[in-house]
């Protein structure tokens, strides 16, 4: 019995710690007005337009990137609106210059929120490269 009670106490303590940690992590989560649901805090530059509407991008950006990466690696088709580099040229944070590496960075905040591992940037740089700039002069 005492063993069970101490287990229960430990579980309660662990739950308390988890809640406290969540509260600490809260600054990166924003809440919509009058809603209890936390949302990822993303700052989006609304002056430019993405290649597809936000709801499409949220669901299919990974498919777009996957399709694009095969064309780039195997066929040498670089640049274009669906390239990772083009994404970064808008979505990299204005102050840090990267889309990852900070809790409120564009890619990272949403992936943290959704609990989806973000693999791209284990090899790719989270900041735009020179091709994105080069591309602007081309059709």
């Amino acid at each position: 019995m005492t063993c069970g009670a101490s287990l229960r106490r430990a579980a309660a303590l662990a739950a308390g710690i988890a809640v406290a940690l969540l509260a600490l992590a809260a600054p990166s989560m924003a809440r919509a007005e009058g809603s209890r649901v936390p949302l990822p805090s993303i700052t989006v530059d609304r002056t430019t337009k993405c290649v597809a509407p936000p709801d499409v991008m949220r669901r299919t950006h990974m498919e777009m990137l996957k399709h694009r990466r095969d064309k780039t690696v195997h066929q040498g088709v670089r640049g274009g609106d669906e390239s990772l580099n083009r994404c970064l040229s808008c979505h990299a944070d204005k102050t840090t210059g990267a889309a990852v590496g900070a809790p409120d960075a564009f890619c990272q905040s949403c992936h943290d929120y959704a609990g989806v591992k973000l693999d791209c940037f284990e090899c790719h740089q989270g900041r735009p490269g020179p091709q994105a700039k080069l591309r602007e002069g081309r059709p």
Partner: protein
Amino acid sequence: MSERDVPVTRRAMLAGAAAALAGVTLAPGIRLVEVAQAAAEPGKPVTSKVRWGLLIDAGRCTEGCNECVLACNRENGLEGGARPTDPQWIRIVELKDRRTGRKASAPVMCQHCASPPCVDVCPTGASFKRADGIVLVDRHTCIGCRYCMMACPYKARSFVHEPLTAQKPEVPRGKGCVESCTLCVHKIDRGDGTTACAEACPTQAILFGDLNDPASAIARRVAEVRTTQLRADLGLDTGVRYTGL
């Protein structure tokens, strides 16, 4: 309806005439249609009309110089041998004839074989040859098994052992993948028409170009002088050739 039954229309006739015109010979071995297709077109898939290669003149390669290696490291963001496990895309190999004492040195990198053994052994299809003859590793599919390193007779491939953070944006690299010389594929796709090593060589010992284009400097040189393929006995038809070894 078989092909023979199709009546020859005016349109088909004209199309045939246009195709014949495109095949017109400009000079021995150069045709109008090939010139148009061989040009680097950004945004278009690469074609097998082009075969990129290098011609390395060991006679011009200076002993003790490693400018090509340094340029390769700079261009591709390699660490440059600070740690024993650091990848190496170009090695300077020194040869000495024991009997005569003649010395020669030359850079050895991925030889971009037409029949690459690394592609044969790759269990996931990550090691592949692009249509324009460049042998690459698709890091998205590479599982880091290193069979290709075992299969390569030139020891051209390296494994990334350590986590990386300072990659160049145009050359993504990461721990757990095999990598090797890409013939500066990002520069080629950009239309630079050269590689970092060829640009950096102070004695112009490295010549880069399209082996399939008879008008290119490399093709003319290969047609003119005797060139050697390393381990030619293996019949791999390398894209990197040597003179003066």
